[in-house]
């Protein structure tokens, strides 16, 4: 790992609408293994937030425990972060989001954190359609405890420990679709052309946006026998298509590439273009997404890209009718009823 990063940056680094360079979106130096897929995901988050001209301090980063959950330290250093307890990021994110609906919430989790210890919380945060980006950095193993199989590991896949996994893998995208997620995508840490627009679209989505990012573990699960190695994933990847994300502020040019087949306008007015590889995929149909995932799986392929999207959904705040003002900004005048109503309350108890 790198332990020193020079402060110097090219003086002509491009700036975004806020006048910030990419540097304002960086975090602390990563302490993960050299070549870890997770670092590429952090870089993609940085790029996406820079491109979207998001004010870094208006983002809250929340994670659980594990290699993946360490990464929020390594991006958006001017954002508050919360590295909570194993498998419980969704509940912390839910509470945080309820307290202040105006921030952007990026939750980072791993396959152990979400598909095992935190399976319950994962399922329920999906059901509540919490407005957040939920990233799973999926490497098929427990990195921090040195390479045990995780619940997303494929049958027969073997990491550095050498024992093939015996048990059915959990597909978090399939599960998210079943549970009612309103934005579901899969990507690969080695494919930033695909990942960055997906992260941008997910952040712009007003509701629960789930991205399962396959992110090989270079140290424990990058073997020739593993189905989550760089080599295997590169050879077996398929994409639903090429995704273009056009933020609301940007003028939409009519310069569509050939093969463009579907356009989705998000709640905030930004637009996603998908250049589909398979005409039968309907982004607004869960069944279609599930079929596409299964079809690929049967062929031994991994389907990536945007899989499903419901841009007109109600998020948790809308469902429970909370006020527009962030709850944490309310003071005594809105929160405390004062002595007046107590007379009537006391009287009703006599």
């Amino acid at each position: 790992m790198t332990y020193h990063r020079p402060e110097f940056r090219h003086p002509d680094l491009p700036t975004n609408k806020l006048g910030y360079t990419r540097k304002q979106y960086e975090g602390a130096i990563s302490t993960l293994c050299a070549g870890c897929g997770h670092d590429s995901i952090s870089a993609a988050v940085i790029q996406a937030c820079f491109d979207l001209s998001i004010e870094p301090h208006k983002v809250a980063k929340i994670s659980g425990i594990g290699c993946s959950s360490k990464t929020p330290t390594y991006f958006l250093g001017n954002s508050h972060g919360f590295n909570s307890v194993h498998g419980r990021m969704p509940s912390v994110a839910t509470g945080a989001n309820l307290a202040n609906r105006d921030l952007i919430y990026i939750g980072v989790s791993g396959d152990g954190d979400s598909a095992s210890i935190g399976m319950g919380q994962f399922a329920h945060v999906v059901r509540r359609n919490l407005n957040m980006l939920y990233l799973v950095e999926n490497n098929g193993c427990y990195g921090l405890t040195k390479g045990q199989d995780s619940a997303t590991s494929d049958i027969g896949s073997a990491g550095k420990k050498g024992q093939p996994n015996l048990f059915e893998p959990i597909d978090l995208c399939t599960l998210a679709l079943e549970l009612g997620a309103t934005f579901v995508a899969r990507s690969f840490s080695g494919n930033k052309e695909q990942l960055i627009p997906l992260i941008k679209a997910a952040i712009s989505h007003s509701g629960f946006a789930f991205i399962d990012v396959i992110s090989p573990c270079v140290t424990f699960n990058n073997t020739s026998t593993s189905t989550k190695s760089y080599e295997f994933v590169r050879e077996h990847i398929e994409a639903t298509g090429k995704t273009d994300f056009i933020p609301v502020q940007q003028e939409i040019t009519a310069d569509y590439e050939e093969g463009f087949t579907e356009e989705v306008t998000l709640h905030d007015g930004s637009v996603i273009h998908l250049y589909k590889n398979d005409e039968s995929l309907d982004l607004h149909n869960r069944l279609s997404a599930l079929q596409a995932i299964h079809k690929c799986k049967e062929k031994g392929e991994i389907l990536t890209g945007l899989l499903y999207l419901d841009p007109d959904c109600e998020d948790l705040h809308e469902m429970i009718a909370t006020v527009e003002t962030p709850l944490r900004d309310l003071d005594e005048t809105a929160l405390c009823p004062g002595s007046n109503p107590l007379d009537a309350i006391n009287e009703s108890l006599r």
Partner: protein
Amino acid sequence: MQQIKSVNDFVIRFANTNGTGSASANNLFAKTIFRMGIPVSPKNIFPSNIQGLPTWYEVRINDKGYVGRRGGVDIMMAVNPQSIAQDIKIVEPGGYFVYDNTKSLDMRLHRDDITILGIPLTDISRREYTDARQRQLFKNVIYIGALAALLDIEFDVLKGLVHDQFKGKEKLIAPNIHALELGYQYAQSNFDCPLGIRVERRNMVDGHILMEGNSALGLGAVYGGASVVSWYPITPSTSVVEQFEKFAKHLRVDPESGKNNYAIVQAEDELSAIGMAVGASWNGARSFTATSGPGVSLMNEFLGLAYFAEVPTVLFDVQRAGPSTGMPTRSQQSDLLLAAYASHGDTKHVLLFPSTPKECFEMGAASFDLADRLQTPVILMTDLDLGMNEHFSEPLEWDDANVYDRGKVFSEAELEAMSERYGRYLDVDGDGICYRTYPGTHPTKGSFFTRGSSRDEYAKYTESSEEYVINMKRLLLKWETAKNYVPKPEIRPASESTRDGMIYFGTTTASAEEALDILRDQGTHINALRVLGFPFNADVEEFIDTHDRIFVVEQNRDGQLRSMLINECEINPKKLKALLCYDGLPVTARWIIEEITNSEPTNNVVPFSKEVEV
């Protein structure tokens, strides 16, 4: 046989079957007596079941104002054949056993030392009503009518209450009053009314209210400014959040938009419930969750995180009888050690011990100030008895001059004006409490990473032993600071000088105070201290130091408060005598008196071994 004679001082118990609508009829009884100006204390003793099992309702009536459980039953209103054998056994000699004699009493159960009165409740009900559910419901109202005649209850007060209870459902008023009259007339024409035990109007209520502690807690949380509430249903805490919601719907809706100035989420489990509370508090909202012992067990990991990462968190623990599932509908004070030292590693948590609904309201609201001030979990310890029973309480009051204490939080302007580096865990004031910032406050200053792992004063991850120890020591300093913020104990001096003391807390209070008065009248003098918070402040240690023998009365098997006193204070454990009642029912004054009396010799003289001040 010497019949018990008493005006306004007796215990009546109703033996019912749950799910038959007896609760509202019995409540009618208690509230009528309350409205006659006499202090009452009703207690539900109910099964963990929805329909068909025995359930009891015990009402203490006492015009001296003693509203703890006394012990013993003077009148049994027996309506449940399932439990009749045990019900008749526990009636005090000279007492009364009123029962439904539609089916005559098994002669083997007969007792010569009590008065047995039979009322054919089922028969009367069957004659009067055709609908099966009505027969069941009105049977309860009929026996209340009969008791009104037997105990000299003012029938107009009873009728007035029926009018109040069915406001909005006026059609039900006349049939209910008719049922009351059926019972009243039967008793008048068949028995010599009133009995030797009876009630008589007094003026002892003086603005008091009858309220469940859980309801008061829910309202306290509304007043305290809680805006994010997460919870998972568990007896006996469920009604805390239900009541919060009920009050919030009236008191917390934005008049302009009609939208809610609060959010409630029913979580998937207790881990998630506390996780949401921690997340919301971290993000600057006031938040709480309510649970009972099994929930606290599950919440341990998050409580440790909130302690170590210093996130204000409010938790209401409505205790029930453990361990494990225990007796889920019975009361105990047995989560003290669990709550005080929840989670792995060196952790300790601030606890609050209310003993009345008024205190539930006030401490419930104040717990948010305390959590924000101390930036740590605050666990308010109540129990099933306080939470789910109506208690005779002083009315609720709120001082409009109250301003929320949000503790040490840097605003955007303060951050902007700062020239030095911001350190989340930097003890600037020397009291162990550092300055927080809410996420999203300032573009470039004040952001930090919250974590459950070790960090330095600037919230940067570290594995440095020195930094770790500095942080742990500062948390201890904060613990010392907390002693100045938790409520001080309440001292109740004896009328004569004594070296004997008694310590109690929460729902033990009412029974303990009655016991102390009776013991005083018998010539035994004991100074008393009621603990209201943890960590124990200096007054608690001083009380222990100035007594030679101290009875610690609590409702658990292992003397948990006693263990905490020994653990936290520099004292001789032998001084602390454990008085432990843990059968799941609220402790009685009689039991305390008996325990103290049996622990002779009492010690009202300065012991020989001590130097006598001249």
